């Protein structure tokens, strides 16, 4: 009896308050739609940014006359003494030359007659932010200014300073902006939904008052409202997801073949996104109507 009664009450209320209900539904739809577009976008952007950041490395050039013992010592130094090291690759003189030949510059080196390229360690940091720590460990600042090196066999430590700095600041800006936008969007949608619910409740505060006077318990009054919220949220969510699905199939999928950004590896898969959006829309409107009602229940 009870659940059927509450459901009938909720549907009756939806019919009688068609306009506010539609407004709530439209708000949920737009919000879910925006979130649905935004979440993959943010993920794709951070994915792309991360990819760029992962390219940040430090090159440690050995002196050209470095022996194998020197190389081993420096490798040990990097692996044990230097903090925040993510990955170390060693590029020997020969390998470096081979790479130059691959790049089509073999003639130039043949002309030289000897191999001027040094042995090189390429260090990628565990986190791009820590790149300065690695540089400081390998090339500590000298009291007289300038930089020395941690080992006499090291000729130079180069961190592509300018590239690194710009990359870091760009990715930081991208991260901050997306986080800020996402935060604003979430606040706006919560306020919108809460306001819509409050408006439709305000229109019915007299009804709630009468119910209380007849001896209805708080939950007896609340259930139909909560169910109403669930129905509105679910409908709005489903409609938004359908729209998203259409857009994905019609627009994004064909484009994905051409654009690297959209196909970024870290994008959430579609079913999970749908489930999340539906859950969020239902939960927000149900909890929203339940909570907004509190004010009017104090009779």
């Amino acid at each position, binding site marked *: *009896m*009870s659940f059927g*009664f509450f459901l009938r009450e909720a549907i*009756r209320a939806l019919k*009688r308050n068609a306009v506010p209900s539609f407004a709530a539904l439209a708000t949920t739809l737009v919000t879910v739609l925006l979130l649905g577009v935004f979440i993959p976008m943010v993920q794709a952007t951070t994915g792309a940014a991360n990819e760029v950041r992962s390219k940040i490395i430090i090159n440690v050039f050995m002196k050209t006359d470095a022996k194998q013992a020197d190389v081993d010592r420096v490798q040990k130094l990097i692996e044990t003494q230097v903090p925040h090291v993510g990955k170390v690759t060693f590029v020997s003189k020969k390998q470096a030359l081979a790479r130059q030949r691959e790049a089509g510059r073999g003639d130039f080196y043949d002309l030289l007659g000897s191999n001027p390229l040094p042995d090189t360690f390429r260090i990628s940091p565990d986190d791009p932010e820590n790149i300065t720590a690695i540089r400081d460990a390998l090339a500590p600042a000298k009291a007289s200014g300038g930089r020395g090196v941690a080992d006499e066999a090291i000729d130079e430590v180069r961190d592509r300073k300018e590239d690194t700095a710009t990359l870091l600041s760009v990715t930081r800006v991208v991260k901050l902006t997306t986080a800020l936008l996402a935060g604003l969007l979430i606040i706006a949608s919560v306020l919108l939904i809460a306001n819509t619910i409050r408006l439709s409740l305000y229109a019915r505060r*007299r*009804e709630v*008052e*009468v*119910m*209380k*006077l*007849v*001896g*209805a*318990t*708080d939950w*007896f009054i609340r259930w139909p409202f909560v169910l109403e919220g669930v129905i509105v949220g679910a409908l709005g969510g489903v409609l938004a997801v359908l729209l998203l699905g259409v857009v994905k199939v019609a627009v994004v999928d064909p484009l994905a073949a051409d654009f690297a950004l959209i196909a970024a590896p870290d994008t959430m898969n579609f079913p999970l996104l749908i489930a999340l959006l539906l859950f969020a829309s239902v939960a927000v409107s149900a909890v929203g109507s339940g909570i907004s009602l509190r004010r009017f229940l104090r*009779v």
Partner: protein
Amino acid sequence: MAATERHLRRRRHRDDPHRPSSAPHPPATGAVLSFSGVEMRYSATDVALDHVSFDIFPGEFVFLVGHSGSGKSTAMKLLIKELEPTDGEIRVAGRDLQRIPRARVPYYRRNLGVIFQDYKLLPNRTVYENVAYALQVTGGTRREIREKVPDILRLTGLSLKLHSYPDQLSGGEQQRVSVARAFVNHPPLLLADEPTGNLDPETSIGIMQLLYRINRTGTTVVVATHDVAMVDRMRRRVIELAEGRVVRDELAGGYAARREETTQEFGARLWGEIE
């Protein structure tokens, strides 16, 4: 009526029925409703009820009269536990209202029928649904509703208006719906706050007749009103409030001596006196 006689006997036993009741007193046993030393302050200077005491016994029909601002509505609001008194004790059927926790208030209210000046009907429900709601709230089954609602609507003379919405009814009819809703659970106590405040004299008599009929089934009825003419004609117990104090508590117009009237006789007398 047995309840009335019992109550009269009890009243005679007590020292002075007209005592100025500002002194706190222990609630009388058997009273369906008792105020003892009830004070209600809205602010430090605004005293709505100033140590009011009275008892109302089962089966009584009591008028609570006074000019507006005398504290009638405050007393009613205290009774439905919409407000809490700042001092004193209110007992309904022996239960101290102050001891009823917030969560139990709805269950307490189901034992009261409440009627308001502005009817307080649910605007988007038919007459039938409005009355049925009072039963649905208490978990009444569909069968119970199908049996009781037409019954009570017949009693209140609304059988032909079952499927009308409140705004399609006259004021008198709306008030009848609200009486029907208040009485459908057969509560032992019926409270009416200015039930005829928005109605013309003829319609008011009809409502009073209805309340009298309900009273004759054994239900205690308390009516707050400022309609002195109506009160005089009814010749029932009158508790008069002025500036938050009880200034009169008496059986108006020799009510005690009068034999029991049928509803028809009662109505005929009211109509006779209006003409």
